[in-house]
C-alpha cells in the first residue's frame, strides 16, 4: 500500500495494513528507505520488516513505538552503526541519503558518519576539555589552523545554545558540566563537522524537565539547518517538536504522517491505541 503523504493530509486507509506501509512524501527527501529489512542474526529472523519511508529535508521526524519495536535499530541503519555488530545486516532493500545508496561499495562509512551525526540517550562527552570535545572531529579531518578551530568551536557551541554558558571555561573538563549541558556539548560535537543529518536516540530521557526543554528548544532551532530524526518514548515530546511521526510495532511501520494528523486523527487503530495509552 502506497501512501502519498503531504504536509496537510493523512491518506492511509482505516484498516490495519496487511501489506507493508510505504510512506512517501511530496517535497525534498533527505533519506529514502526502500523495502528495508534488517536482521541481527545473519538473516534468520528479521528485526525490521520491509520498511519504506522518506525522511524530508530540514524537518524533525520522530520514531515512536513500544520497546523492542525496532525504532532505534532503524535509526542506527542510517549511519550504519549496526555494522559494528558482526551478525547484523540489512537483508533487503536500500537506504539512500541525498540520492546515494549508503551501502554501495564506494561509500566511506567514516565519511557517512560525519554526514549523519548521532546523539545518544546517555550523553557521552570525551574525557577531555569542552574545547577539545568540539574540535576533535574537525582536527582529525585535517583542520590544523588554530583560528579556524576556534571559529568552529564557537560556531558549534553557539549552534548548540551552549556558548554563553561555557565560553569562559572552554579548557575545563566536559565532565564538569551538568547533564543537560553535556548533552548539548554532544550536539555541538556532532554539528562541528557540519553534518546534513542528526540522529537522536532518546536524547532527553536522562535529563530533568528543564534540561529537556532546553534540548527541545535547541532541536527546534537546529531543524532550520539540519535534517533531524529522533527516537522518543515520549508521545508528548514527539507531538511538541516533530513535523512528522512514524509509528512502529514489532519491526513494521504501521503509520507515518504529519505529527498533527497522526496525533489528532490517526488512521490505524493500532496507532490510536498506542498513542492513547490503550496498549504499550
Amino acid at each position, binding site marked *: 500500500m502506497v501512501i502519498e503523504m503531504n504536509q496537510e493530509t493523512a491518506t492511509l486507509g482505516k484498516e490495519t495494513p496487511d501489506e507493508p506501509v510505504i510512506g512517501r512524501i511530496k517535497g525534498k527527501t533527505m533519506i529514502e528507505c526502500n523495502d528495508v529489512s534488517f536482521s541481527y542474526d545473519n538473516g534468520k529472523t528479521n528485526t525490521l520488516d520491509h520498511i519504506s519511508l522518506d525522511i524530508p529535508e530540514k524537518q524533525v521526524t520522530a520514531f515512536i513505538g513500544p520497546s523492542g519495536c525496532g525504532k532505534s535499530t532503524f535509526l542506527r541503519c542510517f549511519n550504519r552503526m549496526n555494522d559494528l555488530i558482526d551478525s547484523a545486516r540489512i537483508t533487503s532493500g536500500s537506504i539512500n541519503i541525498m540520492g546515494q545508496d549508503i551501502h554501495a561499495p564506494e561509500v566511506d562509512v567514516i565519511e557517512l558518519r560525519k554526514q549523519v551525526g548521532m546523539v545518544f540517550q546517555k550523553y557521552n562527552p570525551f574525557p577531555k576539555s569542552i574545547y577539545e570535545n568540539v574540535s576533535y572531529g574537525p582536527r582529525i579531518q585535517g583542520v590544523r589552523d588554530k583560528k579556524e578551530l576556534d571559529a568552529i568551536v564557537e560556531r558549534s557551541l553557539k549552534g548548540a545554545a551552549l556558548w554563553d554558558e561555557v565560553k569562559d571555561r572552554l579548557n575545563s573538563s566536559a565532565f564538569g558540566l551538568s547533564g543537560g549541558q553535556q548533552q548539548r556539548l554532544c550536539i555541538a560535537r556532532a554539528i562541528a563537522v557540519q553534518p546534513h543529518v542528526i540522529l537522536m536516540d532518546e536524547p532527553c530521557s536522562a535529563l530533568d524537565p528543564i534540561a529537556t526543554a532546553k534540548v527541545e528548544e535547541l532541536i527546534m532551532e537546529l531543524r532550520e539547518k539540519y535534517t533531524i530524526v529522533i527516537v522518543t518514548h515520549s*508521545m508528548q515530546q514527539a*507531538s511538541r517538536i516533530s513535523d512528522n511521526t512514524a509509528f512502529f510495532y514489532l519491526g513494521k511501520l504501521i503509520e507515518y504522517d504529519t505529527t498533527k494528523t497522526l496525533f489528532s*486523527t490517526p488512521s490505524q487503530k493500532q496507532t*490510536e*491505541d498506542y498513542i*492513547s*495509552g*490503550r*496498549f*504499550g
Partner: protein
Amino acid sequence: MPGKHILASFDEALTGLKEDVLELGVLCRSNLSISINALLKRELDQVAQVLSVQDDMISLATRIDEDAMNLIVRFQPVASDLRFVLHSMKVAANLDRIASHVVKIAKRTPKILAIAEVVEVNLLEPLYLRADQALGQSIVAYSDNNPEAVSELSEEDNEIDKLYKKARKTYTSAIEDSPEHYKELIHLMFVARSLERIGDHAVHIAEILVD
C-alpha cells in the same frame, strides 16, 4: 468501542466527565418540563422547584469545565480522547445556555400567572414538545457520539422555527387586538423565544459532534 486505557484513572476521568454532561442534560430537560407545566397548568408552586436547582445547574456546568481542564493537564489526551473532551466542554456550554433559558421561563411564569389567562398560552405546548424532543435527541446523540443526528435535528429545528414564527405572529396580532393583555402576551412571546433558542442549542450540540 475503543478499549480501556492502561491507566484506569484515565478511563474513570473520561467516564466521570461524560456522566456529568449527561446529568446536566437531564437536569435541563426535567426542569424545562416543570417550568412549562407550571405555566400551562397554572401551578405556581412548581416554579420554586426550578429556581431552587438553578445554582446546581450552574455549579455542574462549572465543574464540567474544571474536570475537562484537569483531564487535559493530567493525561494529555490525544486523538479521539481529546476530541471527546473538547466536545464535552462545548456541549456543556450549550446546555448551560439551555439552563439559562429554563430559568428565564420559570422566572416569567409567576408574572404570567398573576395576569388573567389568555388562550394564546396554548401555542406554547407544541413548541415546547418539539424543543423537548430536540433536546432529548441531542443528549442521546452526545451519549452515543453520533454525528449523524445533526440532519434529523436540523429538520426538528426547522419545525421549531415555524412554530415560533407562528406564535410570534399570533402574539403580535393579539397585542394589537387586545392591548389590555399586552404584558402577558409579551411574556409569552419571550417564553416562545426561549423555547426556540433551546431548539437552536440542541442542533448546535449535534453539530459539535461532526468533526
